[in-house]
């Protein structure tokens, strides 16, 4: 699988992460699209990065950036992706905090944020579809059903996402054993 240069990696991550509203999952979906289109990442690699980023403390999208950069270009790639994914937005936020600029009071900004949030929703559902799709059309659908049911039940019980993922992992192993 081809790899981007450090510079390509930095700019691709900086562009995709720092142009989305509504959270990191929309940014992850944009990065998945960019990197798979270039042949730098496949769906299995993306799924692994999503899983690991969910289990990493802190901001999920930055963990995704680090994992992505590390897989493609080692330590330098991880650092480039981390800086690219975090620095532009951080500078903007610090400047806004420094000027006490309440940009959200302007109507044009309110419209941009609202439209950006709506676009983010589409991207989040697209990301979910790409994660779930492989499991819908392959053997072992009973196992898939059990894990989905357990996840939904825990969600309804207001269990934290990390605990849900750990329970899901344990259920996955138990169901595998019972299948044998």
């Amino acid at each position: 699988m081809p790899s981007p240069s450090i510079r390509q990696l930095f700019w691709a991550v900086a562009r995709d992460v720092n142009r989305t509203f509504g959270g990191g999952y929309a940014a992850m979906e944009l990065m998945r699209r960019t990197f798979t289109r270039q042949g730098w990442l496949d769906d299995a690699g993306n799924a692994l990065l999503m899983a690991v980023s969910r289990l990493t403390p802190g901001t999920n999208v930055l963990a995704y950036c680090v994992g992505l950069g590390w897989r493609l270009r080692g330590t330098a790639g991880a650092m480039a992706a981390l800086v690219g994914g975090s620095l532009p937005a951080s500078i903007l936020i610090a400047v806004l905090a420094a000027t006490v600029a309440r940009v959200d009071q302007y109507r044009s900004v309110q419209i941009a944020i609202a439209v950006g949030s709506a676009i983010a929703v589409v991207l989040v559902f697209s990301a979910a579809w790409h994660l779930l799709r492989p499991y819908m059309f392959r053997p072992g659908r009973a196992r898939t059903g059990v894990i989905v049911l357990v996840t939904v039940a825990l969600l309804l019980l207001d269990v934290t996402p990390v605990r849900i993922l750990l329970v899901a992992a344990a259920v996955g192993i138990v169901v595998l054993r019972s299948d044998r």
Partner: protein
Amino acid sequence: MNVLLLYGLLLKATMTSFAGLGSLPQIERDFVETHQVLTAEQLGEAVLVGRSTPGPIGAYVVAVGYLAAGWPGAIAGWLAMITPAVLAVPLLIVVQRWIHLPHTRAAVDAIVLASGVLLVATGVRLAVEAAQQLMRVFRVG
């Protein structure tokens, strides 16, 4: 506020959360209640600034750092935000090393599946918020 202490407090909050605004309760406790370097209003302002800009939602800690200690504080906030992400590398190494084993594969598959379901739930929540935001902006209803 001492920048090292600021970094330590923000790092405690980011290391013990697993989503953008998940660190907010800890930051509120440390900065507003215990050390009283921010008012609740300033903390709300930091969150608003973070949400008004594109990029990671967790980046609001940069604004918290700035409001608590100026530019050095903003740098401390940025460092506290990015530090936990480095843990993704050892996690990825462990998972990749053992991914060929059936049990690891089953656990990872289950986590990916559960992540997909959690994303759907997030998408539904965001859709409701986005619809409310659009209605507010365009004054519907």
